């Protein structure tokens, strides 16, 4: 049925806490929609048909976006029912919507080709997804839905081990548990969540939300063993003896460093160390929490990706004057638009075309300045479509009491030393089209195979791997039956 509708060009804004207030704490910046606002935004959606909708095509896990949005409008008189129906649609493809609604780069994915964009603002898909997840969690609707699913699960009797409790591993675990497998996650740190816990700051993704998402997995029967380092506490061989299949979602945990004199001076943090201290160990609550972190008055963050923004905005919340130094120009900043905007609102300065060449220390071995070479861009582009840059031979020195290196990460080294596991030159695990590694029955996904990507791509891999593991184990089961 085609209904005539009025086009509403402007997006319904989501309330945000003002910059001057939020830079003094780690509470969430964006407050999200209320049901009323969510329905207003949902009504703007043109409801493209499933086979055409560019948002579904743009989503790495292909959520039926018009489908879940339509439920909010259809059941507008019964908010609980509207959210339950919408959540059911989302869960068919994505088990962590409260997280992805907050951290996905929607502008490059679902929202990129939104048809509404041709006449006005694109639909705020991310905030609608987040609303559904948040409302459901606060009202216990997600648990209700979960308890409807649990009794329907048929146990297969087969066991799957998952390495790493980050986005890829958690997603794979949830899917496999729903398919009836006995799933155990091995996690090296003391808390599950991976980058969602140690990397992404509280003001962008509250840790209580991640904990709730993990609780749901436990209710699905997933076991989580923290403090277990695969390769040390337990070997791959032992896992293969005790489980029918293994999924590696160990992420990209090894920080890249800058090969420049003075890199080991005090006051120079990798973004991983700085964010781990602040997020996972809660150093912003020192001395109530025991882990210290030192943030000087002047902070330089090197790198302009999402991690750079997270580090810069965290440092800002300690009262620091923060500058992000990037070796390329503004057009090549790779962080999400929302993060860059928030960083600017919060008073973080951006300095472009600066490449660090030396870290200068004081007599106590503590950093006091960074020497940069000024760069310039050429017209020629590299394989990633970014303009190539060259040094100009001119140098500039900027003072800093704290320096945070956020130039990227490599896959975890502990896991890639597994005998028989093939990796490429950069340490990325090599997989086939079903995400199976060189070891039969061992699958991998997320940053462990991609180097460094996004939460949603890792989750997409977790889902694909779960499907592939299901097929692999179904065959194995049937083979065993045939032999019996």
């Amino acid at each position, binding site marked *: 049925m085609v209904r005539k509708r009025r086009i509403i060009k402007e997006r319904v804004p989501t309330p945000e806490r003002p910059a001057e207030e939020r830079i003094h704490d780690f509470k969430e910046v964006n407050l999200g929609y209320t049901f009323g606002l969510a329905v207003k935004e949902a009504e703007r959606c043109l409801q493209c048909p499933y086979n055409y909708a560019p948002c579904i095509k743009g989503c790495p896990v292909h959520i039926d976006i018009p489908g879940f949005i339509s439920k909010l409008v259809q059941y507008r008189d019964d908010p609980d029912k509207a959210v339950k129906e919408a959540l059911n649609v989302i869960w068919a493809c994505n088990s962590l919507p409260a997280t992805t609604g907050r951290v996905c780069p929607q502008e490059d994915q679902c929202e990129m080709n939104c048809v509404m964009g041709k006449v006005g603002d694109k639909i705020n898909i991310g905030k609608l997804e987040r609303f559904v997840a948040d409302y459901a969690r606060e009202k216990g609707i997600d648990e209700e839905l979960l308890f409807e699913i649990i009794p329907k699960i048929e146990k297969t009797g087969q066991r799957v081990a998952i390495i790493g409790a980050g986005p890829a591993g958690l997603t794979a675990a949830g899917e496999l548990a729903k398919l009836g497998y006995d799933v155990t996650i091995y996690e*090296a*740190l*003391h808390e599950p969540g991976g980058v969602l816990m*140690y990397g992404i700051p509280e003001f962008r993704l509250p840790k209580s939300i991640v904990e709730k998402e993990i609780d749901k997995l436990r209710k699905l029967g997933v076991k989580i*063993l*923290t*403090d*277990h*380092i695969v390769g*040390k*506490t*337990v070997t791959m061989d032992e896992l293969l003896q005790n489980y029918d299949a293994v999924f590696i979602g160990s992420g990209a*945990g*090894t*920080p890249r*460093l800058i090969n420049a004199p003075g*890199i*080991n*001076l*005090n*006051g120079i*943090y*990798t973004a*991983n*160390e700085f964010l*781990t*201290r602040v997020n996972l*160990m*809660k150093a912003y*609550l*020192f*001395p*109530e*929490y*025991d*882990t*210290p972190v*030192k943030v000087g008055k002047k902070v330089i963050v090197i790198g302009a990706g999402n991690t750079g923004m997270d580090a810069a905005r965290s440092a800002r919340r300690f009262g620091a004057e923060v500058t992000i130094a990037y070796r390329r120009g503004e057009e090549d900043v790779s962080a999400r638009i929302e993060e860059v905007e928030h960083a600017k609102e919060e008073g973080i300065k951006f300095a472009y075309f600066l490449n660090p060449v030396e870290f200068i220390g004081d007599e*106590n*071995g*503590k950093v006091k300045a960074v020497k940069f070479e000024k760069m310039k861009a050429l017209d020629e582009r590299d394989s990633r479509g970014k303009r190539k840059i060259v040094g100009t031979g001119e140098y500039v020195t900027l003072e800093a009491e704290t320096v945070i290196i956020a130039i990227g990460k490599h896959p*975890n*080294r*502990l896991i890639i030393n597994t005998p028989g596991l093939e990796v490429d030159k950069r340490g990325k695990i090599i997989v086939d089209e079903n995400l199976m590694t060189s070891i039969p029955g061992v699958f991998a996904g997320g940053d462990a195979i991609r180097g460094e990507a996004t939460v949603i791509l890792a989750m997409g891999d977790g889902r694909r791997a779960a499907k592939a593991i299901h097929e692999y184990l179904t065959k194995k089961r049937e083979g065993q039956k045939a032999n019996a």
Partner: protein
Amino acid sequence: MYKILEKKEIAMRNVWYKIQAPHVAGKVKPGQFVIVRAFSNGERIPLTPVMWDAEEGWIVLITFIRGKTTMKMAAELKEGDYILNVAGPLGNPAEMKKFGKILAIGAYTGIVETFPIAKAWHEIGNYVTTLHVTFEPMVVLKEELERAVDSHIVETVPIDPNLDFPTNMKNVTKRLTETVREMLEKEDYDLVFMVGPAGDQRAVFNVVKEFGIPMKADLHPIMVDGTGMCGSCRVTVGGEVKFACIDGPEFDAYQVDWDVLIARSGYYTDMEQRAMQEYMKAIQGGGE
């Protein structure tokens, strides 16, 4: 959650914890360490299993009370209580081969890390002498080492109550370097190994270097995750950046940049003291 099976103060500021941790006990090798998180708002600290039993599933950790965490563990954890997290084993096992005649040194509670390595070296046929230099009331594992190696020497330094702790520690450093020099002059060793504060490791290295004897040092930079993820423990070895947690903890003492190590080890001293003082005030003030 890992149950404390046994807890006792075995010497001044040295506390022994026997902990149910089968996942570590079944796997740990001499030279490896664990990361312990004892309290929900606590930090992650590296500690070294001193002894263990794979079958019974326990490990022994000995802590030296030097900061808030070790003090709070000593004050608040009882037998039967649980430690929240024991992750491991981490790091690489010590190199196990026949070196010949080995001098294995532990300064202060560093001896507890020397113990399993020295014992294992002895068991594979090395002639092992261990040297423990510490303050008089802080001697630990004396009988155990006497049984485990060929020769165990304990050198103690009295604590002068009129001097502050750092000055007292200088006396230990002096005794340490003097003793090592005497021993190296008297006998030929094929390898020197040492665990202890970075400053003492460097002081000993400066003596060993004069004799041209190979030396290995177990390094203890500040760690957070212990799995190669954060880079807090990075050290400069042979001009390259290494992570002590996954590349070490044992390194060739001749290749270590001691200035970098010592500077990095002391970066949080002021905050550590503040945390400890506030904790002491809180417990002396009558609790909550």
